[in-house]
């Protein structure tokens, strides 16, 4: 990593202890540089989703510091709603607003958070929907879409806010295998556009392909981190075992 670039996201010594006492994240630190893609892999319960959710404070960190550029996200004086509008988030289960048509799903944040006029918001929404190849579905409800289409709309919804970074929380885990491709295509096109991203995923091949930096987490800690090549040659037993299970 070069010294002259300011990281978009900086996570320092992040700790998360849930109310029940579960110590989910134990001192995790990493940086996300501009226009880079950080991929977090790891088995279920390794704390990778918790880290991701701490970044936009959907989960409140117990200890540590998280910065979006030079603003500390987990400081009480920060307007978290403003921060969140700068950080896109794509969920495993899509979480589209079921009562709103596709176009309204995408333009809601623009009108209510950014305060844009309805026309301007819809223009932007149509643009981003075209980017994820969903222009023909702007007038249907999410309930009428397939999983892959839903996830592409969800990506468009985040993208519409023109975020500084996008977080993907296992974006393909809930999809049938034949639908995964289209979603990955959409994410790849974002990579091509130079979007800064943090992706939590099980798609090892995909991680290798798009990731600039791969982090392997287990039991709340970063076990290995490095360029995508580390997937090919894991140093630790734990990661070897994990990759073995995944590739079976």
């Amino acid at each position, binding site marked *: 990593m070069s010294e002259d670039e300011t990281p978009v996201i900086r996570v320092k010594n992040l700790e998360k202890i849930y109310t029940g006492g579960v110590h989910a994240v134990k001192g995790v630190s990493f940086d996300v540089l501009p226009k880079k893609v950080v991929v977090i892999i790891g088995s279920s319960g390794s704390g990778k989703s918790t880290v991701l959710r701490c970044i936009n404070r959907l989960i409140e960190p117990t200890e540590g510091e998280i910065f979006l550029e030079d603003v500390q996200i987990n400081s009480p004086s920060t307007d978290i709603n403003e921060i*969140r509008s700068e950080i896109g988030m794509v969920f495993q289960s899509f979480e589209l607003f079921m009562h709103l048509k596709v176009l309204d799903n995408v333009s809601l944040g623009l009108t209510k958070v950014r305060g844009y006029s309805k026309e301007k918001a819809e223009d932007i929404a149509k643009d981003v929907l075209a980017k994820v190849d969903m222009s023909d579905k702007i007038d249907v409800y999410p309930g009428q879409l397939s999983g892959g289409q839903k996830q592409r709309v969800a990506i468009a919804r985040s993208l519409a806010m023109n975020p500084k970074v996008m977080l993907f929380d296992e974006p393909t885990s809930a999809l049938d295998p034949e639908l995964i491709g289209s979603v990955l295509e959409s994410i790849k096109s974002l990579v091509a556009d130079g979007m800064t991203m943090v992706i939590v995923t099980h798609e090892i091949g995909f991680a290798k392909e798009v990731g600039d930096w791969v982090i392997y987490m287990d039991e709340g800690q970063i076990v290995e981190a490095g360029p995508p090549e580390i997937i090919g040659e894991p140093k630790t037993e734990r990661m070897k075992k994990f990759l073995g299970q995944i590739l079976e």
Partner: protein
Amino acid sequence: MLFDKASSKNRYGRSFTIAVGSLFLASIILLITPSLNSEEVMDTGWDQASISTDNDLNDVLALNSTSAFAIGENGKIYHTVNSGVNWSEQDSGVIQDLNAIEFNEQAVVVGDSGTVLINDGESWTANSIEGAGNLYDLSVPHFESLADSIIFVSGTGGEIWKWSDNSWEDLSNFTGTTNDIYAVDFVNENEGFAVGADGLVIATIDGGLSWEIRETPDEFRGLSFYDVIIFGYQGNPVSAIIVGENGTIIQSSGTGPTAIGFIWKVPSETSHPTNTTNTIKSISGSSRFKFWVVGDDNFVALTEDGGSSFYNQSQLQNSGSDFTGVSFWDGYFGFAVGEEGTAMYTDREGQDPRVLDTAINFDTFWKYAKYAFPYLKEGMYNTLKIIVLAIFMGFSIGVTLAVFKTSQLNIRIPLSMPREDGTWKFVNFNPLKFFATIYTDIFRNTPLLVQFFFIYFGLMEIGIDLTFENLLGPERALERAYGSAVVALGLNSGAYQTEIIRSGIQAIPAGQMEAGRSIGLTYLQSMRYVVLPQAIRIVIPPLGNETVNLVLNSALASAIGFGEITRKGRLLISLTFETFWTWGLVLICYFVITYTLANILKYVEKRLKIPGLGLGGEE
């Protein structure tokens, strides 16, 4: 395939719309047909005694407790001897409109074009005035025989004529006015008052040879006065009461021959004792304290305290009729007449009797239904008046408190003592949730009837005003029972709706709130734009049940005296003793309301249905 489904849904939707629409329309028609709102209306104080004629009746004269003359347009004179059950037309010998009738030994009638008729017990003989205009009123202070009598008549353009010494004398030049004089009244041969158009009030103390203006307060300039009555004591005037346009009633009292008419007692701005803006046309009574006034648009009222307060005696059956004349034989027996043959009679001072000596008998259901309809219509109107506001109030409370109950606000309160290792133990406290829980627990665990009593009787005692007079002003203040019923039902329903909407909010996956927050919406915005629209769609069926419950619960408002359907039913039974028909109709009324409401809600549910949201999305 999608298209097929959509079109079949549309077809279903259309017939549904028609069904609901027609039910809704029926209720609207029911509601907008004219109806009296006041619960105080009593329909039993007067008996209908209408005359079968299209002619307007202009005045009535009670001859004794059961017989009367009624006079009207086109020279009509009717006579009854059996309390208005039958009226016989008498030959007046004229075709002019007759305007007023007065009695002193013999009945005297005046009418248009100088018409004056005198009844000698057998027939009517004309004693008309050559050259006089239309005569509006008369007064007969002295009558021995026609040759030995004094009659004053008043009419168009300031005319006043006096009959004495067997001839008519024109006093019009002495009145000093060209206004129409609508009423004249003499307490003896010399002292009398005349009133008329444009606030005219004049008085004489010398038998009409000179008249002087008695100034009335400025606010009555421009209003016409239609009747005047002078009450006397041992032949001396002690009190004058004048009625006229805009519900006006003013009076002047005093002792001594000339004392009255200079200071007028006017109702204060805020209290309008007659409680009407209708024109009052006629006044009659047994004393200066107890008298009746009648007027336009079915206005009939009695005062027993000299005009400070009135009992409204309007009868629903006469809705829309203008009354023109009233005449009481004494303080109990009297007649009132109005346009198009409207007439009624009372032998009980027009008030609702404590005990009905005869219940009204109905030989067929349809006759009964026709009688009961106005009561039930008014009851339905009143019920709808409660439930519309109560549903709105309950829903507002429900949404607010459901949001409170699901809120994540936590205040950490340290327990009193630190632990041994010096750390403090905290408990989380959510004041919003706490408040909402207390509220719903109280309202869901106490009887609604007791809540009604508490709100209606209890809150009044500690000075909480449920007429909302401060808010709405004295003119539009609510009946207190109405305000209380809305508040009680709204608060109670709010508690149940809170729980229903809370369950809806909790049924929405937490991810929806997270998704809302993740694009930068605040908690409340996410609630408003993301969670609530979905939650409320899910809970429309239970909300529908709750609103139906609310309608059924509104029957309890009868316990605090509000005139909704159930109370009207009880009133009908006390009038008719027809319990089976009455309660049967009351049941039907409720069914019509709740069934319509349920269908409207089903329709709303269909309209708001969104593919993929909630169960049963596919049909």
